[in-house]
Every structure is written in C-alpha cells, then in structure tokens.
C-alpha cells in the first residue's frame, strides 16, 4: 500500500470496500514515516500507540456498521505548536522540550472525533516564528523537492510531511504566512481560513490576533475536507466565530465561469522572473476557465510588513512571558535568585529569532512608544483591511503570488532577518485583514522548485476560495 499517495477519498473508499483496515493503514503510515523522516526531519515525534488506538476505534465502528467520520483512518500530522494531551509539545523550542500538555487542542479533538489518526508532531520554527523552519531547536527541515533547500516556515514540517507523503494531511498554523509560504515552497495546498473560523484553543499563542490553525494537504479536496472538520464555533475560544460552517467540498463543484478575479498590482513588483512566469501562466488558466481577470489596487500594501512586525512582536512579547522557568519550562540550573531564574532560563532557552521579537515587542509597547507604534499599527491594519473590502466590491477573489521567490537554500537568509521577513510580503496582508487565503500549487521554476499561487476571498467566503482553487487544480494539473 502506497500510503504516501493516498487521498482522503481513496482512504474512505478503501476502508469501506475492505481493501485495507484502518489499523493496517496506520501501521503502514507509521512505518513509512519512520523510514522516510530522516530525509526531511519533518516529524519530531511519532505517536504510534495513539495512532493505532484511533485506527482500532475506526475499524470497530466500521465493523459495527457505524459511520466512522469523514476523516476515518486518515494519517494526520500535527504542527508542534498545537497541544496534544499526553504527547510532548515542544513548539520547536528548547524551553518546552519536556512539556507534556494535559489537554488536547479543540482542532485535534475534532480530528480524532471525525476518525482521524494522529500520526505524530511536526517540526516548525520556534513558537512559529520564522519563514524557513531553520529556527527550530530540533534541527531544520529539508524540502522534499530539493533537500539542500528550506521547506519554508514556520509550518515547514507540516508542508514537508504532506509533500513527502509521510502524512496525508497536516495541521499548520499561520500568523503571517506560515501555512501558505511553506505550502508554496513544498508544492502542496495550504489554507489559512477566516480569523475565528477555526478555534485557537490549544494553539500555543504567538500573536493572538493573527494566529490561525489551518490544513495542509496534497489536493484541494483533502484540504476542504479537513477544514470542514476543524471549523466552527468553540465555546473555549471567545474569538471563534458563530457563523455556520458551509459545505466546502460541495462548493468545489460550482462553476467559475464569470467569476471576477482581481490582480492587485502591488503584488507583482519585486518578484523573481520564474515566479512571475508561473503565476502569469496560472492567471491565463483561470481566464481559459472563463474567469474575468482585472487589475486592482491595494494601496496600503507597502506598510504591511512594518505594521505586521509591530503587532505580532507586541503580542508575542506578552504571549511568551509565561516561559519563565516556574512551571513547565526547563529552568536554568545556574539560577540562584528569582531574577536570575527569569534571565538565565529565558536567555538560555529562547533562540535568536524569539529574542529578537520579544525585544521588539517589548519596545513598541513601552510607555511613551505605544501610541507611535502599536496604536498606529492598529490603524494601518484597519486601512489594509479596508483596501480588501474595497477590492471585493468589484471582484470575487484576488490572485497573487504566495512568495516573491521559491524555496531558498538552507542558511541563505539566516543572517539577514529583513530578507527573511520579505518572503512573507504577499501573505501578511491577508493575515492582517483576517480573510481566508490559500496557496495552491502553480507549477515549478526552471530548477524544478514549486511555485504557489495565492487566492484570497471575503471574510467567511471559504466556499468561493475552494471553488476557484478546485477548478484551477483540475485545469492545471499542478497538484502533486
């Protein structure tokens, strides 16, 4: 059984026709992940006992004639910033290398209730801060398409595992592009739903007002299925939305002829020629499908990076305060006093990027600077959101590149944080506006590096986004 290539639909068919059992599938997926993982370092932990227990429950339901759920038997990887009861959750940080959470994230519980099989925990940048997965305390992840290159980040492990076939689908998290950018680098589908669509309960916070959980998958249908399972109001997350969850898979079959697609002109400056070429090819495909394509403008785009790095660092500086050596974090063995415990634990425990963001965030919230930085950034954020609202008055969806460039070499941008931050230049605006956005595979560069196309739609218009993505996928045949 080639677990590395199965889709969710094929798994459902296989289970129901008794081609294989859920336990056989789980065993095979675990063995495959164990064998293949050294190539990428995507998994930090394989949860064999838990996976097999879930699979046995699915088999029992099947033989009892009960519905085992839409994710029955599906080997699923979980980014290690999402907590799992009894399974170590490190957030890619040395500080949490011994942290075993006493509870499950809502998204994880929903996956398992839907029959999903939790295969293991996936590597990521420390506390989801990074664009290359090189900020993990447990080693970088390699891009399955080009082992000397990064998989993108911060959900690098999730994108690599799905691309590599060691997971059928995976959960990632996205704050400024952390699902879409690695999805584009690894050539898979990555979805950042509307803010509030998926509960954040159990997602270890980086920047609470920007953090999203979302699916990574090898095709649009699988991503839509997984999102359908994890979406919906959760009383444990006050910011989760009450809006009913729509049928994303059904939306994929609606026609796209006559859909109006906007190309924001600010998103086609400064990208590499290979990426531009692929996106232009993609846009031509959409035209052929009957979409009407027009140029639009999102004039506040140039302020997005500055705005984003003020808001996300401010929130991060507060969210990361709890890693203080008192409770579940490791504690510096050198500390003699309370102040020492804080300084040494955090000094030894956090990596460079976390420290950089904690310092930036502490600065922008400081007395006397709050208005000039944080408050102003919030105003800019509102303007960026308004740009999108205006654009959606004339178009149904926006299409842009995901990143200005494809996967870069390991170490290439490590010493240049600004260059690293620029790899998210096209994704952070959607995050700031809280609208649904996704990356769909859009061919490859001449070197064979995957390129991703980003689709953005109105708040809660995931159906429109999946509809366009599915047609694009069928027309282009770019999917792995």
């Amino acid at each position, binding site marked *: 059984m080639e677990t590395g290539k199965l889709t969710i639909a094929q798994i459902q068919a296989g289970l129901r026709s008794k081609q294989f059992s859920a336990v056989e599938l789980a065993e095979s997926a675990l063995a495959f992940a164990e064998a293949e993982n050294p190539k990428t370092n995507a998994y930090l932990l394989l949860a064999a006992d838990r996976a097999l227990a879930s699979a046995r429950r699915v088999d029992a339901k099947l033989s009892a004639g009960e519905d085992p759920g839409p994710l029955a038997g599906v080997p699923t990887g979980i980014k290690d910033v999402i907590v799992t009861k009894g399974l170590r959750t490190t957030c890619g940080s040395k500080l949490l290398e011994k942290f075993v959470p006493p509870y499950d994230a809502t998204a994880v519980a929903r996956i398992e209730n839907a029959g999903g099989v939790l295969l293991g925990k996936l590597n990521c940048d420390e506390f989801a801060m990074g664009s290359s997965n090189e900020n993990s305390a447990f080693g970088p992840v390699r891009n399955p398409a080009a082992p000397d290159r990064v998989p993108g980040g911060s959900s690098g492990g999730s994108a690599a595992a799905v691309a590599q076939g060691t997971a059928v689908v995976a959960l990632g998290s996205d704050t400024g592009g952390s699902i879409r950018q690695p999805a584009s680098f690894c050539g898979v589908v990555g979805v950042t739903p509307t803010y509030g669509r998926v509960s954040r309960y159990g997602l270890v916070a980086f920047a*609470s007002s920007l953090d999203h959980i979302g699916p990574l998958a090898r095709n649009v249908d699988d991503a839509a299925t997984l999102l359908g399972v994890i979406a919906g109001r959760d009383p444990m997350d006050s910011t989760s939305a009450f809006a009913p969850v729509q049928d994303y898979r059904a939306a994929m079959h609606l026609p796209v002829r006559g859909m109006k697609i906007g190309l924001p002109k600010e998103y086609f400056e400064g990208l590499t020629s290979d990426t531009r070429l692929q996106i232009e090819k993609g846009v031509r495909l959409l035209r052929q499908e009957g979409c009407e394509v027009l140029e639009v403008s999102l004039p506040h785009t140039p302020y997005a990076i500055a705005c984003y790095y003020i808001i996300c660092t401010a*929130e991060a500086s507060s969210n990361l305060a709890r890693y203080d050596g008192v409770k579940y974090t490791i504690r510096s063995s050198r500390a003699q006093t309370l102040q020492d415990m804080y300084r040494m634990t955090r000094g030894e425990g956090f990596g460079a990027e976390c420290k950089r963001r904690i310092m930036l965030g502490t600065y922008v919230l400081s007395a006397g600077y709050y208005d000039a930085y944080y408050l102003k950034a919030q105003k800019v954020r509102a303007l960026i959101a308004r740009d999108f609202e205006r654009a959606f008055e004339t178009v149904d969806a926006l299409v842009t590149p995901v990143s200005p460039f494809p996967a870069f070499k390991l170490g290439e941008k490590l010493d240049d944080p600004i260059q690293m931050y620029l790899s998210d230049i096209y994704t952070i605006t959607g995050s700031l506006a809280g609208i649904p956005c996704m990356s769909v595979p859009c061919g490859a560069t001449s070197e064979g590096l995957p390129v991703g196309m980003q689709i953005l739609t109105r708040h809660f218009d995931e159906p429109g986004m999946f509809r366009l993505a599915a047609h694009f996928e069928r027309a282009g045949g770019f999917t792995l």
Partner: protein
Amino acid sequence: MESMADVAAPLATANQIAKYEAVIGLEVHVQLGTKTKIFCACPNQFGDAPNTNVCPVCLGMPGALPVLNRQAVEYAIQAALALNCEVRRKSVFARKNYFYPDLPKGYQISQYDQPLAEHGWVEVEVEGQPPKRIGITRIHMEDDAGKNIHEGFKDSDRYSYVDLNRTGSPLVEIVSEPEMRSSDEAFAYLSELKLALQFAGVSSCDMEKGHLRCDANVSVRPRGQAEFGTKVEIKNLNSFRFLKQAIDFEISRQVGVAESGGKIVQETRLYDPVLGETLGMRSKEEAHDYRYFPEPDLVPLLISDEWLARVKSAMPEMPALRRKRFAADYGLRPYDAAVLTGSRALADFYDEAAKTSGDPRLTANWTIGDLQGLLKGAGKEIEDSPVSAARLGELVAMVANGELTGKLAKDVLAKMFETGESAVSIVEREGLKAISDTGVLEKIAAQVVEANPKQAEQYRSGKTSVIQFFVGQVMKATRGQANPAAATEALKKLLG
C-alpha cells in the same frame, strides 16, 4: 534598603501636622463571590489543598484561552450600581504585563483605558462633620494572582512554593478620587463601600480572607496650597484598624520630612502592623512599565440596555437610602437606623419584623437590645437567628397591643430563642397573657388597696407617686401578667 527619609526625619508634632492637609485616595480590590473563576470553570473557593482548583486556563498553560464568566460581569455591574457609577456599554480587557511566580501567564487580564464603570461616589459621614461625597474614578474587572509561599517547607530556605488556587478569582478594583482628608474619612469611606457591596450581595468583603484588599495613596500639602504633594502608595493594609494607623503614621512621617526641609520621595511603602510604621520598599521592585495593550483573546465586553435595566431593577436598596428611610418612615433615631443597617441581613430582618409588628420603634428596641443580646450570647449572627423576623414582629405586636407585658415578653423571647416556638403558643401554654380586663383588674386592685390602708392614705393626701407601689402589688398578685397601664387606671379609679 529604606529610603533616606526614614532615617533622616523625625515624626511631626501635632502642631506641625495641623499646618498641613492630607490628601488620600484608596484603591480597593474586592473579590466577587462567584461560584467559578473569572475565565474558567474552576471553583472560586479557598482552603483546599494547594494547586487543586486549577485547570489549563487558570494555570496559563500554553494554548489555553480565557472565556469571561457572565456572573462575574453581573456582580461587577451590581458593584458599580451600588457605588453610583455609570456603567459603560462597552469596556475592553487589557493585558498588564509583569513577571512574578504567582502570575502564571506573565500578565494579568485587567481593564485599562476602557473600564467597566466610571464616575461614581460614596457618601460618608465622620462624627461632628457634615456628610461628604467621595468620588469614585473607576471600577474595572480583573483576574487575581496566586500566592507565593515562602515558609513551611523543609527546603524553604532555598525555594519558594506557589499555590495557584486563587489564580483567576474574579476581582473588581475600585479607585477613588483623592478626596479624603483624614484617616477617619478613609475609614468611613471603606466602611460605607464595604457595606454597599455587602448589601448588593456581590462579595462577603471579608478582609481577613483577603476578599477586600486596600492600598492607600497619601500625600500632604500645606493648608491653602492647591497643588498636591508627592504621593506615596501604602500597601498591606489588611484591616480597617491598620488602614487608619498607617495613614496617620504616614501623614506624620511626611509632615516630619517636609518640616525638616526634606523631600518626600514617590515610592511604595509597606505597613508593618507590629512596628505600627510604614517602611519603604526598594524602588527597583516598583519600577514597572506594565506595557498595557488590549487583550486579543477576549472580545470587547458589551452590556446591552436590557441587561443593565434587568440588573438595575433587581438591585436591593443601598444602606444609605435604607438608613434615610428607616429614619423618615419608621421615625428611628439616626444611631438606631445606622445600627440596623449594619448588614443587609440585619436590615432585612428588622424591616420584616417592623412590618409585622406595626410598631417600628418598639421593634428597633427589641432587635437592637434583647435579640442582639441573645445572639451575642449564643455566638450567632442575625442570619442564624432561631427567632425569625416575623416571630419577633408578632412578639413586639403583643407587647404593643398590651397583650403581653414587657417584662414577661423578655422571658418569652428567651424561650422562643431556645425552642424556635412562636410567642403566641408560649404565652398560651404558659398562661402568660396580660390581664387587661377592667373587671378582673378592679377586683385585684380593690384587694390590694384594702390590704395596704397606710399607703392608700398617703396617696389620697397627695403623694401620688405611691401609685407605683400599688402597681407593683398588682403585678405581684398577677405574677406579672397585669397590663400595667390598665392596672394603673383601675387603681387610680379606686383611690380616686
């Protein structure tokens, strides 16, 4: 290290203090009496084994999120209304960031620039002075921290322990305007505030259990000066007595510094009840920049007109109004009205008893005097009184109607207190009903006058005070059951 001022300046003399005016504001934290914590479903209770009433949310576990407790909001609204505040229709939670081991998230969830309520007041009265309104700047909601435990463990010399049971208890912080001018006013303000919150039923306000905590901001300025002096914050005021002592000490310390040409340092000081002094804390510990920003994990708190109206209509009468009503409608003396509004339970009790008896002033005497005496003797509170308000009212009514003499009523009350029986059944069973029948009383009076001709002669010759003797004799003959007024009437008629 104590600040220089402690070492350098002597305390001021009374004459020196008289030249200055104190300016005092209080920050009061009140723990709301909800069943569960403010952001999670853990029990909001004390005395359990350390770290047992906890969950991922109040432990600040990675990934956990707060969800606001509706009852806590309702209590906070009630507190705001009890203190005459305007409740904002929209308030916003904010993070107050600082490091401390008893603060598991590394920040407190509080409210900052958009608090729950503003612009309130409390009327206070200090003996010998006219009533005065003390303004309340704001009331905001926040979560409580846990407790660090520094002793009692075998390695307490090297480690401190943390108990997080209290973490996440719902608090309101009530900030006054700097409008108090003496420790007596501060005392009166805190007393009235506590009473109002107890009446509203939002907190037990038990200072010993930490349900009411108070910090004071104190400064002094030469009389007549408009600008405020440098303010000092005093912490650790965990009783009313300490509040008064600490403020008095601090006024005297600050005037002493000013009078000896020193400079008052803006700082936080701790009150040491053993020394009776305030002591400076190291300034480093208080140099906080809390980096407030809106809490992104909670949506703004919106209070609808309907909700507010519902809470308002269910508010009980506040102690100040109740005191006024007791005086105006029941004709009580101010002192009695104040005593009877000492707690909501007592005021409710008295109100019901007075309505039953139809004689509010007599009911006040019986409530404050005999019943309170019995309760005190039994170590009971009014809430646990074996004599219900209605039963006390019935007893007082019997006395008022002349059905029972005051003297016997005391014994009857004692029995009621013991057995929980009604006055009527005790009086009937024991045959204690007052004798008011004129025919019966005239007969007894005649016997008494006949038996005491000498005293009868005295009365007739103008020494009318002898009537008391005769009344006593009638009482004796009837074992206390004669209605004294009716007996006097009968005697007068006879001795005529």
